[in-house]
């Protein structure tokens, strides 16, 4: 029996993955899946602390079709309180939305799937560069540059971080320097660097990642040469991480 109450029904939209398992255990609800072309991996954790209460009798894996889930989550308002409930050997997952202001209670059930999938993860590594910046800024850069080209080169050095691309119609570059906003710390840009890094990534995926911007006001990009890029959106009680393999040479 799983019972979890989420104060905010965070909107989880992912174009990357269609079906995946939500693994529920003592520490919280985790999701890990790779996109169909196996270039990107998404990993999400909603820590148990984020739920109040969080009760779990035994570990369960919930196979969910994300398209269906999104449909149901759309019925909720952002401020609604969400409760997830399921059996130990589940066929369905029930979602209950409680209105924050009024007494509206809506109950939905989603049919679960039995997904036989290999569980893949990216080992934790030390990154050569970690850049944290406002998520809106990152989203804008990705969106702007995706007009020009399919891929972006990210160069991190002591001076700052440079996003550059070139396409058929021209080229563009955005450079961010380290700066501190004392009033609003979430708007500052921080660069931690052990050595300079330059890598190229597919913009199509980055733009997709940016859809998670709503979850957090800051985003952290961690890079090392010849290692996948880590894009992390930290939430109060959990995180969403995206890994993206760098482009090598001309090919993907």
């Amino acid at each position: 029996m799983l019972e979890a109450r989420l104060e905010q029904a965070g909107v989880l939209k992912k174009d990357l993955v269609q079906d995946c398992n939500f693994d529920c255990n003592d520490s919280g609800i985790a999701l890990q899946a790779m996109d169909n072309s196996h270039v990107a991996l998404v990993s999400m954790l909603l820590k148990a602390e984020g739920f109040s209460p969080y009760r779990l009798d035994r570990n369960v894996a919930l196979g969910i079709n994300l398209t269906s889930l999104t449909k149901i989550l759309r019925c909720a308002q952002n401020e609604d309180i969400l409760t997830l409930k399921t059996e130990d050997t589940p066929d369905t997952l029930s979602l209950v939305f409680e209105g924050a202001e009024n007494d509206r209670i809506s109950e939905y059930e989603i049919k679960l799937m039995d997904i036989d999938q290999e569980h893949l993860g990216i080992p934790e590594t030390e990154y050569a560069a970690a850049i944290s910046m406002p998520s809106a800024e990152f989203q804008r850069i990705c969106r702007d540059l995706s007009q020009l080209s399919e891929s972006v080169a990210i160069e991190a050095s002591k001076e700052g971080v440079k996003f550059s691309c070139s396409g058929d119609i021209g080229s563009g570059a955005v450079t961010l320097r380290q700066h501190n906003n004392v009033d609003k710390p979430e708007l500052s840009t921080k660069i931690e660097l052990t050595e300079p890094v330059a890598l190229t990534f597919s913009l199509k995926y980055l733009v997709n990642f940016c859809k998670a911007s709503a979850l957090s006001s800051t985003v952290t990009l961690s890079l090392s040469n010849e290692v996948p890029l880590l894009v992390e959106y930290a939430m109060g009680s959990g995180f969403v991480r995206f890994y993206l393999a760098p482009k090598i040479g001309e090919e993907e």
Partner: protein
Amino acid sequence: MAPVSKKRRMIVFDRNGKRQKDEPSESDEDSNSHKKVKSETREQRLARGSQHAPSSFEEDLGRLTEEVNELKTGGQEQHQKWSRPDLPESWDPKEENLIFQQIECDEGTFDRKTTIQLFGVTEAGHSVLLHVTDFYHYLYVAAPIGFTRQHLAGFRTFLENKLQTGLEPAIACVQILLRQNLYGYTGNQLSPYIKIDVTDPKLIPRLRNLIEHGDANYENMWPAGDGGTKTYDALQFVMRFMVDTKISGMSWVEVPAGEYHLVDRREKLSSCQIEAKVHVKDLIAHPSEGEYQKIAPLRILSFDIECAGRKGIFPEAHHDPVIQIANMVTRYGESKPFIKNVFTLGTCASIVNTQVLQYVSEGKMLLGWSEFLRQADPDVIIGYNIANFDFPYLLDRAKHLKLVGFPYWTRLKNVKSEPKDSSFSSKQMGNRDTKATNTDGRLQLDLLQLVQRDHQLRSYTLNSVSAHFLGEQKEDVHHSMITELHNGTADSRRRLAVYCLKDAYLPQRLMDKLMCLINYTEMARVTGVPFNYLLSRGQQIKFISQLYRKAKEQSLVVPNLPPQPSEDPYAGATVIDPKKGYYDVPIATLDFASLYPSIMQAHNLCYTTLVRPETCERLGLQKDIDYEITPTGDRFVKAHRRKGMVPLILEALLGARKKAKADLKNATDPFEKAVLNGRQLALKISANSVYGITGATVGKLPCLEIASSVTGYGRGMIMQTKAEVESRYTIANGYTHDAMVIYGDTDSIMVKFGPKDLPTAMELGKEAAEFVSQKFPTPIKLEFEKVYFPYLLINKKRYAGLYWTNTEKHDKMDSKGIETVRRDNCMLVQVCIETVLRKLLIDQDVEGAQTYVKDLISDLLQNRIDMSQLVITKALTKNDYTAKQAHVELAERMRKRDAGSAPTLGDRVAYVIVKGAGGAKNYEKSEDPIFVLENSVPIDTKYYLENQLAKPLGRIFEPVITDAGVKKLLNGDHTRTISVSAPMVGGLMKFAKKTETCMGCKIPLTKKEEVGGAVCSDCKSRFGELYQKTVTKVSELEVKFGRLWTQCQRCQGSLHCEVICSSRDCPIFYMRMKAKKDVVDAGKDLRRFDVDISW
């Protein structure tokens, strides 16, 4: 051949099968006279055997011992035995008529004069080249008003000057003859035409140009129009000769004794045993009837070469040597080859029943083979893809190695064989780029081209073609494997040689099975064109040949019309709107037999009967008495004014077919039967192609008036039939039900008479057919052929039903336009639809059909469907597709990966759809099945469900169950269990680490004590159960793999060797690959339990 399965079979090495009673001449090279005598008796026996019945088993055994002796004594005499039987000494050109079957007819020169060369074989198996002299090519031109005999000499000199050929006279003869234009009826009047004969056929195009451009307007007698002057009878020289001498392709010809002159040994142009010269007037052509429908003992060589390619690159003649050539030579009419050998580079262990010729150098081997070819002197050379691969490769290779004596494969002593690029395009078959190699005097039959031409298959590899027609698989050795085998030991080369021999034997088997030689021979005889035209030319030449033959009888001349492609197509056949649904009452089908030919006959439609309104008035013809107006408003005179030529041709064709069919019934000899069956087929095809030619605007003889009138009549007839049936079979007329025509297309209608039992429906069908037939002029006949019961009508040209011709048992399940017969989808769809139809129609079990579909879909989503079922094949027909297509993109990607194995133009590309990035187009998601297997790329099961299965299933189930039911079928609970495999390629896979999940509940095992184990702590109680399950799974998979492996070993014919086959057409191959992987994976799972036990 399947050497393994036929180990005991004997192959005879002697090639001197004497058929003459005469004593053989002692040949000089023969040093071993004792042996000679021995082989003599055997040969005579063989000759007898071949003429009567296939040799008995004792004879086989007898030959076996002799064979062994022969092998022991070494192969010095083998060359001599390859050759044809010697000419008997008593043979005297003064006394014996020269009778032979001509197989090729070509233009040639002899003694500096243009001649026709007839290559052929006598009944005793001697090769013949006959030079036919004094035949002149000619053309006609309409004589202008006022042109009389007095002008002839002047006109001749005038043309002579225009042509300016120097000393040799260019014009052989100019004369006035009374002829008639083929096009249009002009009251049966003959008008004067000038026939111009030239000495050299090459002058004809020049002469034609001169006249047509108005540059040969003698004394300006022809009215000066802008178009110049029309010429008549534009026929190629060879066809002209055959038409005028009444020789048809593959027919027998005779020259009486004394009328022909043997060519002196020194002047001989060819390697034929008899080379003679004859004047065209002494040549007798025998029609292919009675005694002369036999076929001479043609020698048929089937061969295959193997090349040692480099890794990943398709063999190229400039780099990669030819390492083996396998040959089989069979005499027509015998079931077993009498020569069976293999030429190998390097040593090769001996092979049962096969002569192995080992060579140290490639050059020597090639020269040895070339010598063998000339010695064995085959009349027909067959093989698989020889035209585009083997022939050009051998020639290019020999050129590269500078082997001067190699490329002489023709029967003409100093004519080299050379590969030429040619492209063939026809409406029927699309465009194909091919290479053509000349082998003057020998016919070529590339089984690949032939099968591509006559049969629609999913794949055209030799393997799948033989699996389809012979029910026999062969091991498919990938070309990179060949080099490995070649570089191994004598035994590994033996393995390759066996493989090569099989490749040489299969075309032979295919040819026998498909009866290509017989059917094509009959087609050549019926239509009158040379044999090699049948493969290299389209339909039109066959009709032209028949038309000219008939035209000559009737003194008609055919104008040379420039092709004028017309844009506006005429109306085609009609389709009665289908009343869709599922019918559980018998549906009778009424067909018009040979609709279009019979319309042409019934209404006397022909080039010669087409009449203009002005002509009608001028001749005072009366409507409906003298002429008829067709539904399209064209006028044709009736048969009593003039019988059309096309109807005559059709009458002859259909009459001959009837006769052939009657003969077929009485025939007892299997060969005679085969010939007759081939003939009636050829006749049917020819009759049906006539309509097409009149409608082909780019062709030589277009006549849209005929074509559109034919379809016009056809449309009217279908509608009339519908009306007749529906008005007669009504309750008002005393029948139990009102009949309803539920569908009709081109030449057939489907009628629901109403009664629920078969016999009544059949009775009504027969009666209706007879009743309606009376309403139409002869020979139009409506036939009752079959009843469909039950019948599922999905849409226009899409239906399925059980086919009944008798009341006891249904004949088959018939389906049209449904995915079972289309090729652009995967096997899964085909199998699924077929099973569903079977359940719906035969078992009438709707519930069962639905359950089957649900199970299938759930299997698909869980990756349990065998991959061979998911492979889609499409032909790569041209390079510049405007829209991106899956198979084109894949071919491009494969070319980048490995240029050698990538498909080329004309190949069928096999692919599966794999999961791609979000929003990726389908064409980006195609992948090579082998690549998918090797890297376990996940299959896009959704694509198969939604794009492949959904629509056809929806169409079939729609008339049977409700819409909601159909939806549930595709999205029900059974779609909720899926399985996704992790690939070994993809950007992130280099970095990702796999976390094991619990086998009981799929929870990732991340805790320290659980890592590497099989179950999580919660599922520990189920340990025993899960372990049991896994062990069972592993052993099941092992058994499955073992069985597949043995299956493949059986197929390759040896249980002691590793399986090296990588055939893409073989379902077992995919299963075997998948089983292999599954065993490995399951084994890994099993080992995880060991970790758990330790705690």
